[in-house]
């Protein structure tokens, strides 16, 4: 018997990465800004997205959403109330979305063509670990953190926070009764992802939504 070492230097998620690169190219040429929203379960991704979709439509923009959950189409039904086209992705136990799921759900999506959209939001499965490894072809990865979760969340999940392009603090309307230490939270986010844009919002009262929507418009303009 002889032993041989074969150098591979091959990305483990190469297939996903290649598929995501293809999607990114497709999104760019269609001129649609794609955002991947990631957070723990219960942060308020759906409420935040619902308000974002509603306000974008009021501003005359075309927006759609793909929403990932292990089971149920509850979130898709909630988001559809905004009037935007929404499609549910059920992962049946898988803890993250991957590029293949995005590609297959873009196909045959009745009434939606990428070229007709300004924005496509992808609401990932509620999880702060696994989605960080899977590129979905998005241009902007948004991490969300609510005031009820503890200011040290970024320190506990550095892999995901460090991979984000923008951070949104949600439920800011109940920051005070929760004893939320704003300075500490902002400092922790910045310690893990220096220089990241941070938005402080409430989907309930609308606080901070204007700043967020202006950022979206500005980013879409860069396409």
């Amino acid at each position, binding site marked *: *018997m*002889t*032993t*041989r*070492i*074969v*150098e*591979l*230097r*091959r*990305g*483990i*998620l*190469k*297939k996903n990465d290649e598929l995501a690169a293809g999607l990114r190219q497709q999104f760019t040429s269609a001129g649609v800004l794609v955002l991947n929203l990631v957070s723990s379960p219960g942060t308020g991704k759906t409420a935040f997205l619902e308000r974002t979709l509603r306000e974008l439509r009021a501003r005359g923009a075309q927006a759609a959403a793909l929403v990932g959950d292990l089971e149920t189409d509850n979130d898709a039904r909630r988001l559809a109330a905004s009037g935007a086209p929404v499609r549910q992705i059920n992962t049946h136990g*898988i*803890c*993250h979305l*991957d590029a293949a799921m995005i590609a297959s759900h873009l196909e045959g999506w009745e009434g939606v063509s990428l070229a007709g959209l300004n924005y496509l939001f992808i609401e990932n499965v509620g*999880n702060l*670990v*696994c989605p*960080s*490894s*899977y590129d979905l072809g998005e241009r902007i990865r948004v991490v969300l953190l609510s005031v009820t979760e503890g200011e040290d969340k970024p*320190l506990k999940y*550095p*892999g*995901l926070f*460090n*991979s984000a392009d923008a951070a949104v603090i949600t439920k800011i309307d109940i920051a005070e009764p929760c004893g939320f230490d704003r300075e500490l939270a902002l400092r922790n986010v*910045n*310690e*893990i*992802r*220096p*220089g990241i844009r941070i938005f402080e919002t409430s989907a309930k009262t609308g606080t901070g939504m204007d700043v967020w929507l202006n950022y979206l418009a500005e980013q879409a303009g860069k396409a």
Partner: protein
Amino acid sequence: MHELSIAASIVESVIESAAAYPGARVKEVRLRVGALASVVEDSLQFCWELATQDSPLAGAALVIHVLPVIVHCDACRADTEIAGVQSFRCPKCGELAADLRQGRELEIASIELEEPDKIEEPVEEHV
């Protein structure tokens, strides 16, 4: 939690690469995993056993080499390794450093094969 998907991707990729060496058995698979890659080593080892059993890779060892995070500091104009993943600051000057140069790797570095003697060299494909 996604370590099983990762293990399955490694198995698929290694079987594909090892196919160029007929008759060889894969003894060891060596990975390079960045400290920020969100992969738990113990969990991946556990899933590796599950993913390889009943496959041509059954019994192959998985060796995980963890790479520390390296940031580039604009002020020092240097790439420096940081201790841990709790603060992305240049260890030399203390400035925040957003430019990550290492730490997200998730790759198969190499595989070790055991081959019967006098096996013919694989035919190299030239593109």
